[in-house]
């Protein structure tokens, strides 16, 4: 039985792992991927110490830091069920089952889907949830970015540099997100902004050819070859049933990263901590590891 199992290896999980390692805990990291959403981010200019770094580069730095401590990481193992059995916690994954005295849930968030006709059919056939990964394939092509928050602005800023025309389809009266990003997007010559607009349908034959939107009660078809869905995120918290969550499915934690169940801690975007930022997730990860360490010292 381990002292600690960390679920997830994004900024929160990796930072928790570095701290747990320095406390000489007997622990394991179970994760679907490494870097989490940070690896999907475009340009990062607000992670202290780096005036400019890209998401994949920062994720790489995180991983190097973790590897320095020879931390046991099982990549490709996704948690399916977490259960408390008296003094031990069982974590079932897609491959195996593990037992631990404490756990830290740092499983992050994933992209929310639009839920419109054509979305599933055209996924990876022009429709994508990762501008950082797939953006370069749309050089000189006309694309649509769906959303109006920071993720959408980030995707739009990446695409402005490579794509032809970038249609930004936002369902609120004005763009959200950070002013500094909004200004860059609004000043770009190849951006066409549709506020108060909703996507109704994605269509095409083999690949995406157009989207249908509803603007002020009027339907309009826009010919595009790429659709980037950036309408927000949902927490990866379904594998743990008994813990208290808020209305968004985020795991409720207190200032010590404790959840409603003793010995279960949580950190990063999967929690109800306000503001989802890489630097916040990293800080929360360190707090969670220290809380787990002190919990074990007392029990």
């Amino acid at each position, binding site marked *: 039985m381990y002292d600690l199992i960390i679920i997830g290896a994004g900024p929160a999980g990796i930072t928790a792992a570095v701290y747990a390692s320095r406390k000489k805990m007997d622990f394991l990291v179970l994760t679907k*991927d*490494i*870097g989490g959403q940070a*690896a*999907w981010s475009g340009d990062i200019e607000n992670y202290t110490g780096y005036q400019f770094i*890209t*998401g*994949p580069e920062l*994720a*790489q730095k995180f991983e190097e830091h973790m590897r320095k401590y020879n931390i046991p990481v099982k990549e*490709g193992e996704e948690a399916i069920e977490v259960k408390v059995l008296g003094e031990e916690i069982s974590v079932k994954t897609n491959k195996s089952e593990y037992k631990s005295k404490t756990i830290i849930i740092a499983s992050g968030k994933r992209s929310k889907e639009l839920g419109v006709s054509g979305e599933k059919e055209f996924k*990876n*056939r*022009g429709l*994508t949830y*990762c501008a*950082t*990964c*797939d*953006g*370069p*394939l749309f*050089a000189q092509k006309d694309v649509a970015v769906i959303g109006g928050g920071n993720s959408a602005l980030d995707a739009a800023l990446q695409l402005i540099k*490579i794509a032809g025309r970038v249609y930004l389809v936002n369902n609120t009266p004005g763009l959200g997100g950070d002013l500094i990003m909004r200004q860059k997007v609004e000043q770009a010559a190849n951006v066409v902004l549709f506020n108060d607009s909703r996507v109704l349908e994605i269509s095409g034959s*083999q*690949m995406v050819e157009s989207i249908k939107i509803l603007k002020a009660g009027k339907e309009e078809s826009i010919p595009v070859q790429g659709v980037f869905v950036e309408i927000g995120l949902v927490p990866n918290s379904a594998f743990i049933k008994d813990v208290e969550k808020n209305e968004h499915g985020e795991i409720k934690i207190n200032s010590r990263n404790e959840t409603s169940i003793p010995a279960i801690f949580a950190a990063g975007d999967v929690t109800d901590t306000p503001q989802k930022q890489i630097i916040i997730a990293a800080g929360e990860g360190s707090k969670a590891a220290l809380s787990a360490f002190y919990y074990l010292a007392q029990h």
Partner: protein
Amino acid sequence: MPKNVKVYSTPTCSWCIRLKKFLKENNIEFEDIDVGSDRERADEMVKISGQMGVPVLDIEGEIIVGFDRELIKQSLGLQ
């Protein structure tokens, strides 16, 4: 005879970076194709895989979309 392996990827995709690292760690030689800068090869990737997501791995004509470690191990005969 080592198998003929091609990787279609973009420099910014984290799964692509991980896939290539995995191949290197296993001493698998491969042709590294940047579909972000080469339009013709990008079209070729779409044609052989029927989709636009990266990475795409071509192992002697067997097409694997995404970093599917188990499938890749199987196809390359890795432990």
